[in-house]
């Protein structure tokens, strides 16, 4: 068994290691890094090609940004409109303030249905509320039906990406998981063979399990409709065969009007999987006699979202349509993959969403898990200025931490406080440059370079040298040059 398969990262932000430590096992794992880089390079190339063919891409982004911002800024009204329309169409709407309440509601529905088994369409929101382990513990067998989710469930692994959750696993690893868990000894790693094995496994579930759980890519206030887009058709099966459907969705996923899909679907498919259109686009509105599930429950989850809504600079986070273009473009994610983020939401969007969902009590290392390169903002189809939110959250973390006396002598805090003092007065800054130049000589080798530094500096020199400080600063050179040239120019002036 490979290291990646044996590895069980914690995707609970309350328990996860800080990002720098959590990233280490991945950085040391060549197979994992290769899998991640290869997968996102493929998606990125497909996306780039399809974005390039849209001459109105920037206009589409602006429109989508406006639609999503309008939706979340009028969230209360649109949620009530959705509730009324969905209820009128025969659905039952439930409101869950937090993860525990959502889990309880879903279990109660399953108990009413006498469901011992449940099939699931891919939903990252259910992973956010850690639904599967909860249901298993309550005696309900959960069967994932999305191919990637099956791989993860059978391989006992955690998702590392929100669109392609098993992106860190390559096909020979998939073969190993399927062979072991499905008892298929002679399985090859041909994608068609692997898919066929999953298909056989799934058919049984689709035909025998009458209760299903889904997420939602969006739900529509105007019509009370709920939508899922997917590539495999397993979602369509879950929306056709079962008797009962339970949908779990974050409250921010609302769209005001049906027509908004014109904009959102064009952007979502291209941004997420590099396709012009998702192969399966399903929208259902309450229940329809004789067609699909005859009982429909919609669980609307808050779980920290309304607190994000109250913060003007941060609320743009809720515009997210979960396309994952930000993580696919992120140079940090490309190296670390998703597990290092300790949350079901990794990458740049996870770095801003997770700590906010945790009301800034956990995941405080995540806003710092970015070089602020801006690639995420550039690709975001709904124009979330992720670097701006990262900076806002960094400021909040620093404001929390600097009240902590234990941090007073933390080298980073001490250094930044001193630097701030120095930058306030040029003479003090210049004096410190002079002192620093003398001090740094202790660490400067004969070749003029610094190979090793103590404390925070050691974090730099563990992989990089630093050129020794030059003898003369620029301002020193300028002053000397002015002294030399000014008598001459004054003579010339005479």
């Amino acid at each position: 068994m490979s290291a990646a398969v044996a590895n069980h990262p914690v995707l609970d932000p309350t328990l996860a290691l800080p990002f720098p430590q959590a990233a280490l096992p991945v950085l040391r794992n060549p197979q994992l890094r290769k899998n991640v880089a290869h997968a996102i390079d493929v998606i990125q190339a497909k996306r780039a090609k399809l974005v390039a063919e849209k001459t109105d891409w920037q206009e589409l982004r602006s429109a989508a940004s406006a639609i999503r911002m309008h939706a979340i800024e009028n969230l209360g009204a649109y949620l009530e409109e959705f509730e009324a329309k969905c209820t009128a169409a025969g659905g039952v709407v439930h409101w869950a303030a937090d993860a525990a309440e959502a889990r309880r509601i879903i279990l109660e529905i399953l108990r009413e249905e006498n469901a011992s088994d449940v099939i699931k369409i891919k939903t990252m929101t259910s992973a956010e509320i850690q639904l599967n382990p909860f249901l298993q513990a309550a005696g309900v067998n959960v069967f994932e039906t999305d191919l990637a989710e099956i791989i993860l469930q059978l391989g006992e692994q955690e998702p590392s990406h929100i669109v392609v959750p098993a992106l860190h696993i390559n096909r020979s690893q998939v073969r190993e998981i399927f062979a072991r868990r499905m008892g298929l000894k002679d399985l090859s790693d041909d994608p068609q063979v692997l898919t066929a094995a999953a298909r056989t496994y799934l058919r049984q579930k689709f035909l025998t399990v009458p209760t299903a759980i889904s997420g939602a890519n969006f739900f529509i206030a105007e019509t009370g409709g709920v939508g899922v887009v997917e590539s495999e058709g397993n979602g369509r099966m879950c929306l056709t065969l079962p008797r009962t459907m339970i949908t779990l969705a974050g409250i921010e996923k609302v769209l005001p009007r049906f027509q908004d899909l014109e904009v959102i679907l064009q952007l979502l498919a291209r941004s997420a999987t590099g396709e012009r259109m998702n192969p399966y686009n399903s929208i259902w509105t309450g229940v329809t006699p004789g067609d699909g599930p005859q009982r429909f429950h919609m669980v609307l989850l808050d779980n920290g979202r309304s607190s994000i809504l109250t913060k003007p600079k941060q609320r743009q986070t809720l515009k997210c349509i979960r396309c994952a273009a930000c993580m696919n473009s992120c140079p940090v994610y490309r190296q670390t993959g998703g597990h290092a983020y300790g949350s079901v939401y990794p990458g740049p969007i996870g770095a801003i969403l997770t700590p906010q969902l945790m009301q800034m009590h956990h995941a405080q290392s995540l806003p710092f898990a970015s070089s602020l390169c801006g690639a995420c903002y550039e690709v975001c189809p709904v124009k979330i200025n992720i670097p701006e939110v990262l900076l806002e959250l960094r400021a909040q973390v620093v404001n929390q931490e600097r009240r902590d006396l234990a941090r007073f002598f933390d080298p980073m805090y001490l250094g930044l406080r001193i630097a701030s003092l120095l930058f306030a007065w040029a003479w003090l800054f210049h004096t410190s440059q002079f002192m620093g130049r003398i001090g740094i000589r202790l660490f400067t080798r004969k070749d003029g370079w610094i190979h090793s530094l103590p404390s925070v500096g050691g974090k730099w020199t563990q992989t990089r040298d630093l050129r020794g400080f030059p003898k003369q600063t620029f301002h020193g050179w300028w002053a000397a040059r002015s002294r030399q040239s000014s008598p001459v120019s004054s003579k010339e002036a005479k």
Partner: protein
Amino acid sequence: MRASLFITCYNDTLFPETGRAVVGLLERLGVSVDFHPKQTCCGQMHANTGFRGEAFSQAKRLVRLYQDTETVVVPSSSCVAMMRDQYPGLIDELGNDSLRKDFAAFLPRVYELSEFLIDRLGVEDVGAWFPHRVTYHASCHGIRGLHLGDRPYRLLAKVRSLQLAPLPNVDRCCGFGGTFSVKNAEVSSAMLAVKLQDVVSTGAEFCTALDNSCLMHLGGAMHRQYAGMKTIHMAQILASTEATPAEGVL
């Protein structure tokens, strides 16, 4: 034309040769260069690390310092991006009306070096000579922050004897990211390793950029790994002529 040089705190301390090159280059092009002796830092390090109050103080200090200056030239895209992207928010939130007014007047007068040469002076051929194979690292703040576009390439194309080697994955971050490079040193180093492969694959002798911060990161690894390459700020290439070749190149 007059221009005041904002050298930036780290160039002043660690890369004075870049400042000397900017002065040499601009004076050669007939620009009268000033240098405000009280300048220190733009506040980027504090802002990016979450020290908003401190960053605001430095922003305020800088705007006041250059209140009466016609044109400010900065040989660092990340510091200019700080002024354009972060000053508005800081000053809006923490400043008063008088500062907001001064800032509004200040911002259009700030130019990154390649912007100043192409947009303000209208030159592409600055009369430079640099007989080496060079690759250009388009830093994140250069491409996505300032949208410098083809400006740096147009300038490099006119440098005599310079052979430009295109850099693969040119829009990908080198992993520096300011305090990110020490707060997330291992991830930063992994990003650096990948970037360095691309840089070395060009077969160039020099990697240039408009940001010494990225170059300090890349150059530090090149030196550690005996990669056989050096880094050089683009100002030094543009200042280089047959009569006065770039400092420390040979």
